[in-house]
C-alpha cells in the first residue's frame, strides 16, 4: 500500500519558485488499482518520480508498506526502492541486453546468484507471456511486448507495490488492452497495489478501481471509479464518460439526458420508460458499458412534450437521473465539458 501525505514539490530556479505538487494526499490500498489523471503539466510525472524518490519531495511523506521513504538515507532508500516495481512509459529497456537479461537487471543489482536469477527470470517471462522471446533484443520486440518485459523487470524483486508511469501511453489500442489485462491479472494473483499514472481516460475506465484528478499540482477530485461515473455532477466523471453526439429530437419532443446513477438500472429500461409514461421514447444516442460487472453509461432520449413533466420521476425509479439536454439547457454541464476537454488533451 502506498500513501502520500501532504506531498509537496517546489522547483526553485533562480528567484522563481514553481509549486509542482501542492499538499497531495493520496492512498492506494492493498490490492487496489488507483489511477491518477490530469492534463500535461499537472504534476503527474513529478508525482510518479516522487513515489520512488527519483526526485526528493520538498515536504510531505511517501509511505510504502509502512516505511516512510522520505526519512531514509541514500543507502536505505536503495533497499526500499526494491520493494516498489516501476513500469516506465518508454519501457526503458537496455538495448544491448536480451529480454531475459533486462528482466535480470534488478536481480543482478541485488547480487542474486546466476542460477537463481535464471530460474526467476524464466518464471517472470512466462508470467507476462513472453517465455518464447527470452533471447530477443528490445528492437526485435513490438511496443506491447517491450512493455511486458518492462513489467516483468518491475516484478523481479517481488514488490508489493507497482508504479506505472504512463505505462500504456504510446501503445496501440490492442497492446494497451493486453497490458491493462495483464496488470489487472497481476493485481488479482499477487495482491499488488498499483498506482497508475496516465492521461488516457479510456485506459482509466478499463483498469482503475479509484481515480484522482490532479490539476496544477493539487488533487482536485477523487473517488471510486463507479461512484464518479454515476455522479452526473462530477467533472471527473463527465471527463471519464465518453462524450457522444446524439441525433436531433423529432418534432414536438424534447431531448432529455439520462445518466445511470444506480447500480441496478434494468437493461430493458427504454421499454419500461415508455410503458410508465404511456408515450413513445425515442433513443437519440447512448453510451452504455459494463465495467467489471457493473453497468454504467448515459443516454439521450426524446419524449413528447406532454409527458415531459413526469419523466424525471419515472426515470429516477429506474435508477436514471434525468435532465433536459440540448441547446443552452444545462449551464451546469458547460464547465464540466471544458474540464473534460482539458483532461482528454
Amino acid at each position: 500500500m502506498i500513501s502520500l501525505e501532504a506531498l509537496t514539490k517546489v522547483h526553485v530556479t533562480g528567484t522563481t519558485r514553481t509549486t509542482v505538487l501542492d499538499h497531495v494526499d493520496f492512498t492506494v490500498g492493498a490490492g487496489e488499482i488507483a489511477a491518477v489523471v490530469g492534463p500535461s503539466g499537472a504534476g503527474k510525472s513529478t508525482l510518479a518520480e516522487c513515489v520512488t524518490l527519483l526526485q526528493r519531495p520538498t515536504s510531505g511523506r511517501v509511505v510504502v508498506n509502512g516505511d516512510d521513504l522520505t526519512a531514509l538515507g541514500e543507502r536505505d532508500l536503495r533497499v526500499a526502492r526494491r520493494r516498489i516495481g516501476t513500469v516506465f512509459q518508454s519501457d526503458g529497456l537496455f538495448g544491448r541486453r536480451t529480454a531475459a537479461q533486462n528482466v535480470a537487471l534488478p536481480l543482478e543489482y541485488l547480487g542474486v546468484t546466476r542460477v537463481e536469477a535464471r530460474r526467476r527470470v524464466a518464471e517472470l517471462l512466462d508470467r507476462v507471456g513472453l517465455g518464447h522471446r527470452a533471447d530477443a533484443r528490445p528492437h526485435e520486440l513490438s511496443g506491447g511486448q517491450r512493455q511486458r518485459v518492462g513489467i516483468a523487470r518491475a516484478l523481479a524483486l517481488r514488490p508489493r507495490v507497482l508504479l506505472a508511469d504512463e505505462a500504456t501511453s504510446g501503445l496501440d489500442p490492442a497492446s494497451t488492452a493486453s497490458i491493462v489485462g495483464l496488470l489487472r491479472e497481476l493485481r488479482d494473483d499477487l495482491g499488488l497495489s498499483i498506482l497508475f499514472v496516465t492521461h488516457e481516460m479510456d485506459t482509466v475506465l478499463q483498469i482503475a478501481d479509484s481515480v484522482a484528478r490532479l490539476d496544477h499540482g493539487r488533487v482536485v477530485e477523487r473517488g471510486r471509479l463507479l461512484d464518479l461515473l454515476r455522479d452526473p455532477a462530477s467533472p471527473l466523471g463527465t471527463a471519464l464518460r465518453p462524450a457522444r453526439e446524439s441525433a436531433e429530437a423529432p418534432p414536438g419532443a424534447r431531448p432529455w439526458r439520462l445518466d445511470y446513477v444506480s447500480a441496478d438500472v434494468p437493461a430493458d429500461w427504454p421499454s419500461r420508460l415508455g410503458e410508465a409514461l404511456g408515450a413513445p421514447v425515442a433513443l437519440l444516442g447512448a453510451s452504455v458499458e459494463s465495467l467489471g460487472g457493473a453497468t454504467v453509461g448515459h443516454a439521450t432520449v426524446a419524449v413528447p412534450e406532454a409527458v415531459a413533466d413526469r419523466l424525471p420521476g419515472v426515470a429516477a425509479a429506474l435508477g436514471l437521473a434525468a435532465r433536459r439536454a440540448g441547446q443552452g439547457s444545462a449551464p451546469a454541464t458547460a464547465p464540466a465539458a471544458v474540464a473534460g476537454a482539458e483532461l482528454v488533451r
Partner: protein
Amino acid sequence: MSALLAAGAPAAYDNSVPLAEIPALVLPALGDTFLMVGIVMAVVVVVGVPLGALVHNLGPAGLAPAPAVHTVLSGVVSIGRSLPFLILMASIVPFTRFVTGTNIGIAAAVVPMSIAGVAFFTRIVENSLRSVPSDRVRVATASGASPLQIVRTAQLSEALPSLIGGLTINTIAMIEYSAIAGTIGAGGIGYVAVTYGYQRFDHTVMIVTIVLLVATVAAVQLVGDAAVRATSPEPVPRRRWWRRRSDGPTPVAVTAV
C-alpha cells in the same frame, strides 16, 4: 643505424636505401609504432574511461552534479585538448624527463601521447555517455542499483558501441601523434619517414612508409567497425566509402535544380 648508413655509402651521391634493405629498416620501425600506440592506448582506456565517466556524472546531466568540480576538471581536459600535439610535447619535456629519465625514444614519446590521448578520450567517453537515453539511468536507479552499478550497466555498457567507435578514432589519432613524436627521435614509422623520406629525399622510403601508414589506419578502422557491429544491438550498415560518390546527387541533378 650505422650499418644502414654504411650500406648506403658505396654510391657516392645516392644515399638512398637499397630496395632490399627497406624491410629491415621499416618493419622494426612499424613494430615500434605499434608498441608506442599500444602502450598509449592501454593508458588511455584505463585512465580515460573512469575520467570521462567522472566528468559526465559531475556535469549537469550526471548522477552527482557538482558544478565547481566539473568546471575545473573539464577545463583541465580542454587545455589538454586545445594544445597542438607538437607544442604539448615540447612544453612538457621536463615532466617527461622526470617520469622516464629521458627525453628521447619510445618511453619519452609515450608520456605526451598518453596525456593528449587521455584528454581526447575523456571527451569521447563523456560525449558517448551523454547520448545514452536518460531513462536507462532512471530504470537502474528505480531497480535499486548503486551509483557504480548505474555507471557500469546503464551508462558504459549501453554506450559500448559508441565507445568502441571513439576508441577507433582515438587509436588512429595516436598513430598520427606517434609520427609527430618521430620528430623528437621517438622511433617508429614516423621517425623513418622524417629522417629518410623527408630529410634525405629518399622517395622510396617515403612511399613505403605512406603505404604502411595508410594500410595500418585502414586495418584499425576495419577492426573498429567490426567491433562496433558486433556490440551494437541493431544492425549497423557497413561503411561503403568506395560507393559514396555514386550514392550522392549527380552534378547534373544539381544544375537541373
